[in-house]
């Protein structure tokens, strides 16, 4: 068991409010990722859940029990810190056993659990080493092992991969999802890297400036971002966002006008919005097509940058500033004029407040 619920949780440091009333639930056994730009309060939220920071207002409950006043150690959670926070003067074995020793677990039991976790994490041969004698990836695994042996209800990870190099990070990502599959324990994972969020999570909580922007399955957030921020944050390369206005409303659907580039039909519902309103339209690079012929729903611009990745190519088009993803390799050259088609079904429309208009 390890379900979690946050109700109206706020946090103030002195006069500064850093978390503004956060509400969401985390299902037992899920892999939830808190993602957001640095300073959005995601780490603070995690520290509040694990009990290292007090809750200013609202409640945090684990398995339907309010834990606001339960000390960190008694919440049945285990945390993996960004810096790993391994005890430098203890061996790998002692690092992993320390938590259990504090619980007066019998020595045999400690030994079994530590050795099993070490086997699972391929640390068997390093048990007598000090953390300084380990590589970054191994230290990371020791930190995870220290959490595993305690058999917690929920694992908390605070940007655990940010100190690893890119290659190792991809490997650890796979290891962590594999670990989650095997242990089936709830994991809450904090990162500023949306790729990590997309690849590992079953639920993503997008945070900005102490507020929850959207909660949902990664692809749901990708396909139907609730607002401009989520649209821009999730996905790499990021969604093209362009200022526009509502040109007209036809049969409940919005047609948008990009100043200087004509009008574009969309499949978003106009409910409550009228022509002339300023909006933002968004479209992902992979939904744009480059073509020779101009026509309805196309705009033309000049190629201002090309990135050939072999299997894919990205071109930057100038005026308006957009990125287009092309499959395969492109023959387009710098400075060449190109027509870009915007498929109506893939256009996202956000109102003046940044909220997405529903799509049909």
């Amino acid at each position, binding site marked *: 068991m390890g379900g979690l619920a946050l109700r109206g949780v706020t946090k103030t440091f002195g006069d500064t409010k850093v978390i503004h009333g956060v509400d969401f639930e985390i299902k037992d056994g899920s892999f939830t990722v808190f993602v957001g730009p640095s300073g959005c309060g995601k780490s603070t939220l995690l520290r509040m859940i*694990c009990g*290292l920071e007090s809750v200013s207002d609202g409640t945090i409950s684990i398995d339907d029990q309010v834990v606001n006043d339960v000390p*960190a*150690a008694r919440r049945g*959670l*285990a*945390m993996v*810190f*960004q*810096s*790993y*926070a*391994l*005890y*430098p*003067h203890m061996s790998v074995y002692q690092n992993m056993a*320390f*938590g259990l020793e*504090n*619980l007066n677990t019998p020595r045999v039991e400690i030994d079994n659990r530590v050795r099993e976790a070490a086997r699972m994490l391929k640390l068997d041969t390093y048990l007598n080493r*000090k*953390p*300084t004698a380990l590589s970054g990836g191994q230290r990371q695994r020791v930190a995870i092992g*220290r959490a595993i042996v*305690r058999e917690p209800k929920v694992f908390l990870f605070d940007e655990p991969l940010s*100190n690893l190099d890119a290659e190792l990070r991809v490997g650890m990502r796979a290891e962590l999802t594999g670990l989650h599959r095997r242990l089936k324990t709830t994991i809450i994972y904090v990162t500023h890297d949306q790729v990590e969020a997309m690849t590992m999570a079953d639920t993503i909580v997008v945070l900005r400036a102490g507020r929850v922007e959207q909660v949902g399955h990664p692809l749901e957030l990708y396909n139907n971002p609730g607002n401009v921020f989520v649209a821009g944050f999730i996905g790499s390369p990021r969604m093209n966002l362009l200022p526009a206005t509502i040109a007209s409303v036809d049969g409940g659907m919005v047609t948008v006008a990009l100043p200087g580039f004509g009008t574009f039909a969309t499949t978003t519902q106009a409910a409550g919005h009228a022509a002339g309103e300023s909006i933002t339209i968004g479209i992902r690079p992979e939904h744009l097509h480059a073509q020779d012929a101009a026509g309805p729903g196309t705009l033309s611009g000049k190629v201002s940058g090309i990135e050939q990745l072999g299997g894919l190519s990205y071109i930057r088009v100038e005026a308006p500033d957009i990125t287009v993803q092309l499959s395969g390799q492109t023959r387009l050259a710098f400075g060449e004029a190109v027509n870009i088609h915007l498929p109506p079904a893939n256009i996202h429309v956000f109102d003046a407040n940044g909220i997405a208009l529903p799509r049909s």
Partner: protein
Amino acid sequence: MVKLLTATRGKNGWDWTDWAAHIYLVLGVVVMFGPVLWLGMSSLKSETGIQTFPPTLLPYEPSTIAIPGRGDLKAFTITAGEFAGKEMGELRRLGLQAQMIDPATPDTVRRIPVGDRTPIMRVRAAWENFTGLFTQFPFARYLWNSVFITVIATILTLLVNSMSAFALSKYKFTGRDTAFLIMLATLMIPPTIVLVPNYLIASQLGLTNSAWGVIWPAVATPTGVFMLRQYMLTLPDELIEAARMDNASEWRIYWRIVLPLSSPALAVLAIFSVMWRWNEFLWPMVVLSRSESFTLPLALNSFQGELTTQWNYLLAMTVVTLLPVSLIFLVLQKHITQGIASAGVK
């Protein structure tokens, strides 16, 4: 070691700067270690050896010569007159003449002018200076007093100061910084000013003439708290949070995590504390008035009599007093250089 002693600036042999540096360093060694060497050598001289003029570095003492039927007599070489070049023993000295005996003719006493002979000297270490400390004086008592006070006070100092430093560096509570500042401010009060008030307190608590009277007031040192606090500030908070998540009680966090990781700073404080307590003079002199509770510095002081001072014993005692501190410094010095904490994180 050889490599270190013959280190040069570049790879092209000895530059003039190397010569200058080495000469400067050798000079430094002579200036620093000369007096120590002198003290060590002099502590091995007999009472007469110390008063010999001109002074010698090595401990010399007059040699003796065995004369059948007369025992061991002071040996002299005759420099002039009938017996020039001969070694003779002195029976007694009478004014400017001395009665001497040639070992070859032990029954004949000869009169030799004192100007015509020089004493035969030999190098001999007067270890009896050291053994005499234990047989002729209650030196073992003083040594024990000093060791007891130093060891107990150092252990308590480390314990109390590190607990205080832990709280001041890792807990957030109102008045923390004020408390720390007040503690630091006490450094500005010269110890002589609080001598009398401290004595009054000590005497009311019945601590006078007891080792505890020296130990307790010395245990809380602002310098030690400051030093340990600064070091503990460099320990990452995440380690303590990790331990807290690991169900460790605050005492266990302190004992198992913070204390071992602070060992470089603790070693420095231990050295300081040992040196302070071992050499401390003024406060023990005020608190301890009975000679059986004296520490070594007090004993050294009382040894310097008003009329006569037995320098050979005094110097031997000084050497014994210096030795433990020097040894401890040698042993713990290595420890200081080992930075443990910063390595394990990241």
